[in-house]
């Protein structure tokens, strides 16, 4: 995770006297087979209302039964975040009327959640609890919202999908810090295998609580809640826009009103959904149709057994065992697919063996930069072993960096899988510092008289055009350091 410095408000255009205080509420759709309180399978785009039963339709007489798998996944999240796991947690009913809520209440957890406390990175966790998702409303008509629509349809396929709600303490200070942290959380959850964590498909949803206060103050200002931002970019933009809005209010001598807000990514505008006065009285009370969730040693052991290594632990291990820099270790650990590729390359025992740091740099830099955005390198044509061998050859100076990049291009195109074979076939092997290179350098110096003159006068930066020509002539096979040395030698500079 990037180094965070407090002062997000200044980034958002403020005068630096105020700081933003941000907490996140994240809804994670759990990767169970069936719904939270009934046996219906989860829906992935099936025709509307085909994954329903009396329970998730809230038919009279139906009763919920808690999904043991969802509890298991919730415990894994709690263990990963270092939370305190409640030996006995209970479900509550959150009562309100809406057509996407067939029982007139949502079953959720209230004052006795499954997990309390914990932390991830530099953000403390307040709680993690389990609940059921609402159904999906589709509004016909131009407004796209329930008010003003001609007809509304309800698809109960999503209703009852198990969710874990993760609530942070208000430890975040800047929009980009919030989105960075959310990426870390997503990686952690993906690594755990508890969720698909796909924001576009709604399996990861984020609300933000935002307030401002004078820097150095310990008290919290009046907060607003920004709802349902469905991409990392929108989260950053939404929070930034809300900070700017609050700053403007406070700068004008006004007071921020506690309310729930909607960010429209298309227009960048923020609109009020409801104020504190309009807030529902949810009339929470213990769900009498369910018994408490009692966690026993067997359940804890099962959750622990299903835990794989988490990103923060992996970063620490990569530093300790392989001597990677902090930044490299975190990049590889927080992007699981890069870490997996890296470790496969290390394990391939390629000849010649690459240095770990060099291998990490090649993966996070040249390889990722050449692949389509978001592609997992394991899905590319470049085998981890081949990249490891190529980096090994670079380290032994048997191929220049420039030529190695060409070899990498071939590997990606599928024009071979053995770096050494490509190097030999295309004549990309490093040139030794013999007469051939000296002649090419001499020709390049002669062809760039202006540059040569300036280098002679002591302008080291002017060497560029000459180096460029040598590289073109040698198709990048020449070693850059050697070329520079020869140029200086020939120019007596």
């Amino acid at each position, binding site marked *: 995770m990037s180094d965070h410095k407090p002062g997000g408000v200044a980034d958002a255009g403020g005068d630096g006297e105020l700081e933003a205080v941000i907490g996140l509420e994240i809804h994670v759709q759990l990767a169970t087979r069936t719904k939270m309180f009934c046996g219906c399978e989860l829906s992935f785009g099936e025709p509307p209302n085909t994954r329903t039963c009396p329970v998730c339709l809230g*038919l*009279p007489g139906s009763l919920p039964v808690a999904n043991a798998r969802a509890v298991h996944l919730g415990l894994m999240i709690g263990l990963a975040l270092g939370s305190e796991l409640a030996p006995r947690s209970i479900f509550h009913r959150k009562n309100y*009327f809406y057509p996407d809520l067939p029982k007139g209440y949502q079953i959720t957890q209230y004052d006795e959640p499954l997990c309390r406390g914990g932390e991830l990175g530099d953000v403390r966790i307040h709680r993690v609890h389990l609940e059921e998702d609402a159904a999906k409303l589709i509004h016909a008509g131009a407004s796209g919202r329930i008010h003003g629509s001609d007809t509304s349809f309800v698809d109960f396929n999503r209703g009852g999908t198990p969710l874990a709600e993760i609530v942070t303490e208000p430890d975040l200070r800047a929009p980009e810090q919030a989105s960075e942290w959310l990426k870390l959380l997503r990686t952690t959850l993906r690594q755990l295998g508890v969720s698909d964590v796909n924001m576009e498909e709604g399996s990861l949803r984020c609300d933000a609580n935002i307030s401002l206060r004078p820097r150095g103050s310990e008290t919290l200002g009046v907060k607003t809640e920004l709802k349902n931002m469905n991409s990392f970019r929108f989260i950053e933009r939404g929070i930034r826009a809300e900070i700017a809005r609050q700053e403007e209010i406070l700068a004008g001598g006004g007071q921020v009103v506690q309310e729930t807000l909607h960010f429209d990514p298309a227009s960048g505008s923020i609109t009020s959904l409801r104020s504190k006065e309009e807030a529902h009285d949810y009339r929470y*009370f213990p769900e009498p149709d369910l*018994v408490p969730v009692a966690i026993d040693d067997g359940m804890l052991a099962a959750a622990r057994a299903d835990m794989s290594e988490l990103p923060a632990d992996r970063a620490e291990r990569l530093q300790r065992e392989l001597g990677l820099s902090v930044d490299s270790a975190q990049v590889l650990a927080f992007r699981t697919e890069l870490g997996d590729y890296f470790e496969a390359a290390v394990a391939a025992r390629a000849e010649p063996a690459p240095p770990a740091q060099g291998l990490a740099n090649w993966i996070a830099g040249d390889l990722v930069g050449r692949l389509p955005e978001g592609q997992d390198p394991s899905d590319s044509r470049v085998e981890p072993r081949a990249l490891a061998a190529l980096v090994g050859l670079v380290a032994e100076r048997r191929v220049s960096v420039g030529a190695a990049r060409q070899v990498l291009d071939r590997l990606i195109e599928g024009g071979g899988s053995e770096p050494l074979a490509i190097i030999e076939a295309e004549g990309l092997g490093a040139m030794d510092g013999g007469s051939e290179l000296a002649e090419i350098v001499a020709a390049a110096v002669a062809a760039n008289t202006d540059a040569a003159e300036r280098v002679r006068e002591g302008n080291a930066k002017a060497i560029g055009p000459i180096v460029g020509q040598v590289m073109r002539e040698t198709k990048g096979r020449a070693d850059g350091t050697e070329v520079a040395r020869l140029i200086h030698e020939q120019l007596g500079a």
Partner: protein
Amino acid sequence: MSTTDILDLSAAAAAAAIGGGSLSATELFEAYRDRAASDRAAGDAGLNCFTWVAADAPSEPVDAPLAGVPVAVKDLFCTEGVPSQAGSRILEGYLPPYTATAVSRLRAGGAPLLAKTNQDEFAMGSSNENSAFGPVRNPWDRERVPGGSSGGSAAAVAAGLAPWALGTDTGGSVRQPAALCGIVGLKPTYGAVSRYGMIAFASSLDQAGPLTRDVTDAALMLRHMVGRDPCDATSLAFPGEIELPTAERLDGIRLGVPQELTGEGIERGVLDAFAAAIEQAKELGAEVSDVHLPHAPHALSAYYVLAPAECSSNLARYDGVRYGMRATDAHDLLDMYMRTRHDGFGAEVKRRIMLGTYALSSGYYEAYYGRAQRVRTRISEDFRTAFEQIDFVVTPTAPSVAFRLGEKTADPLAMYLNDYCTVPMSLAGIPAISIPCGHSEGLPVGLQIAGPAFSENRLLDAARALERSIAFDARPARV
């Protein structure tokens, strides 16, 4: 066998007669079906016990312990493809796609569905006057109520319109109508019978129970309903089996009479019949002593916070969106909700939804719901303490005999007092049975016996011994 003889058989005796070949299941079914259908057709001239009556007898002979003895089932049990509207307008025309566990277990045991019975709307009431189908009349006196909320079930059994019936008891809704109609009513331990498919009133209290002509029938029906149900998280495995009771004596049985539930507010005639029953118990060898349930007088207050609180939430689903009634002339969503619920619910249901909504409101929760829960805990502790010294608590079931139609409809508090003796057991989740123990003013009086959780077998034995000794054999004139 003549029709009159058939109607005189208890359910257990009818099952035995079918098993022995002296009676056919179809003959039995049709005899009751015809009587139930006549009552339904008679409307207000009949007892108005039923909301639906089966057309045909099951075609297959029933090869199961209950041998085809049909059962009348309270309207609030969901029965697949059969109207189930819990006595409410708001569920008009509702046909459930599934059947309640208790009903399907009875069917699996050999008891097919005879009819659905009238009830107070969503089981809220003690007189069966709060029904979208109109009031049920007491077969002992047509001008009197049968009790409630399982009034249709109780009246049907008492009048010989059904061999036996299934009801539900939240604060006394099986026991009180059983008492007022002169039959047996059993509320099992909370969790003993699955609630799946029972249209909920107050989830932490609702429990299905038999309404029968005698204690043996109650045991027989319960035997085929109990047990853990994977569809009801609050259901529990019954330890052992329900045995048919055989006891004739009460030697060594210690009965406790709580003064809190046997004094003020109970009619003189009821207390007299109760005292006579206690004397009978002593003659059978029981030791009778006073017992204290110090928090029992607060049970009714706690109950009328907790039950409405749960019902305010349980009934939120009747919003007109998916099933049942929907107001047609609404101009937006909120208006549709309000009109549907305004038109669909009766006055008592609305009263309790408002009480419960208030009790759960932010700022009032602790003072009402929280405090009521603590009273509930104290009441459970009272019983636990009592059962260290005695085997059963005995009280009158209801403070009065059947009262006149309309007598208490204008006074909800007077109506709520009907549950005074039955609500403490409901809050404690313990089993209690009401058996007829005599008459007052020519109307039946009920005796309530309550025991610790899962003491049903001992409870049924004690009730059977008393029933045999009391020999209450009166019954209302056949209609």
